[in-house]
């Protein structure tokens, strides 16, 4: 196993009878962005909560910058900025005060804290709101403020639990830009997300989790190419044609699967496939490049969770 800024070996987390994380191992390289993807209940949030030392391990080993999480939680927490899933900004304080009070927890000197706070308010376009109370902010502003708060201590590692869930596209793109610019500055990032587009945009590598285990870990492009192929053809078939098409596919070399009224063909030679499908002129079909979402659904299945 290569050396990285975070090393996890056989991590286990149990809540009573429930095993939320079931013996996972991974390495996070310094400066990369690693995404944890998975359906609800896969163990993503539990995993990252163990990394920022808020949730004790049931078993396994976890090192952050060579510090053992069991013995040096304070040191480790001092180098990690956390954007939790739930906003937990301080509603009794203003935007600026939220940053300054948080800076005190890291023993940052008042003068320096003020300087950094204004820098971050500019970075996340919140300066005009500095004297507002939290309840007066929109969802996107709260999210930006919580990212600013996580950055006030200049963390080596930034952990983001669903950073853009529930935000409009404008707010989401602003946050993506900021996260990419932090990555250029060398901040290691770990994020969880439900949005495959977000993972594709931000992550160097993704870990696809389900039922407390990591199913695949690698760069999105490589994983997609290896597991799904390069192209996907979606066929929407009516009931009358379904049997005939499936009969044809059974006899063909194509890899395919069915979900509801749609058949998915995974291939690297879409044009040939399309040519051989030309004998069914009434098909509604979409031919597109394979994405992380195809891989995700292939690995974790298409049935609903929860």
């Amino acid at each position, binding site marked *: 196993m290569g050396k990285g800024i975070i090393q996890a070996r056989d991590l286990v987390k149990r*809540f009573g009878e429930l095993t939320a994380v079931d013996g996972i191992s991974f390495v996070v390289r310094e400066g990369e962005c690693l995404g944890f993807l998975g359906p609800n209940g896969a163990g993503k949030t539990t995993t990252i909560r163990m990394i*920022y030392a*808020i*949730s*004790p391990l049931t078993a396994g080993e976890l090192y952050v910058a060579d510090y053992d999480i069991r013995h040096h*939680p*304070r*040191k480790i*927490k*001092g180098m*990690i900025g*956390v954007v*939790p899933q*739930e906003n*937990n*900004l*301080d*509603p*009794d*304080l203003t935007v600026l*005060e939220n940053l300054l*009070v*948080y800076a*005190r*927890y*890291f*023993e940052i000197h008042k003068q320096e804290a003020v300087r950094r706070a204004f820098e971050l308010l500019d970075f996340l376009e919140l300066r005009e709101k500095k004297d507002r109370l939290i309840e007066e902010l929109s969802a996107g502003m709260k999210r930006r403020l919580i990212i600013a708060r996580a950055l006030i*201590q200049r963390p080596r590692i930034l952990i983001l639990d669903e950073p853009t869930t529930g935000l409009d596209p404008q707010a989401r793109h602003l946050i993506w830009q900021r996260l990419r610019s932090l990555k250029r500055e060398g901040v290691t990032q770990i994020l969880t997300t439900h949005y495959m587009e977000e993972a594709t945009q931000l992550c160097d590598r993704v870990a696809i989790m389900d039922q407390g285990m990591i199913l695949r870990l690698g760069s999105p492009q490589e994983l997609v190419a290896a597991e799904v192929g390069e192209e996907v053809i979606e066929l929407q078939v009516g009931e009358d044609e379904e049997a005939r098409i499936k009969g044809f596919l059974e006899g063909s070399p194509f890899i395919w699967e069915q979900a509801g009224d749609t058949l998915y063909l995974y291939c690297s030679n879409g044009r040939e496939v399309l040519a051989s499908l030309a004998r069914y002129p009434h098909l509604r079909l979409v031919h597109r490049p394979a994405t992380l979402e195809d891989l995700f659904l292939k690995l974790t299945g298409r049935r609903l969770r929860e």
Partner: protein
Amino acid sequence: MYRELLALSWPSWRAYRVWQRNLDSYRRYYWASLVGNLGEPFLYLLAMGYGLGSYIGEIEGMSYLQYLAPGLLVSSAMFAATFEGTYGTYLRMAHLKTYEAILATPLTLQDVVLGDLLWATTKGLISGLIMLLVLLPFGLLPSPWALLLPLVLIVVGLLFSALAMVVAALSPNWEFFNYYLTLFISPMFFFSGVFFPLTNFPSWVKGVSAFLPLTYAVALSRALTMGEVSVSLLAPLLWMLLPTLLFGCISLSLIRRRIIK
């Protein structure tokens, strides 16, 4: 539970940062809070001390107003610490997720709990000090030993903060605090020798009273106010400090169980 108590590591001076956070948030509404702190004990002093007091002769060789003052003093600290320790702690712990936010920083749960405990104690102290300022011009603090009363207020604050935080840790919702306030705090307010001595009550009432921590606070406060100081006062002091330590540890342990998952 026993093992958990032993496993507790010491909090650090960083608890001060939590205390500071609470002070910053308090600044936003301190007038309303002060009125609340002061209002009730002051009304009791006025209504019972002057009103009722003019119909009552002396109690234990002093005017009723004088009898009442030391008990109301510690009661005001008790109420302020109790409200902050229950509602305040619960608000930050369960509702605002302040604990979660702070735990993602170098602070530990021990720091957070100690910071909140000291803050609730501070609220008790503030409330008691205001009461002292009210008593002073009435000539109700005849002995110079009264200078030690702020220390008593701190001890009272610590004790009732620790108790309140145990309740907050166990509380599933806001209504839960009614049990504690109605079944424990209110009876204690009336049966700890604040308003009347328990000498004429049946022995079981006295027995119960001997288990009420406020009883010792009132005794201590009255002794210092009247300058009747002796070594025997160490006993009530001890009876307040020991449960403080015990309930402080229990509250930490319960809050840990609730928060750390």
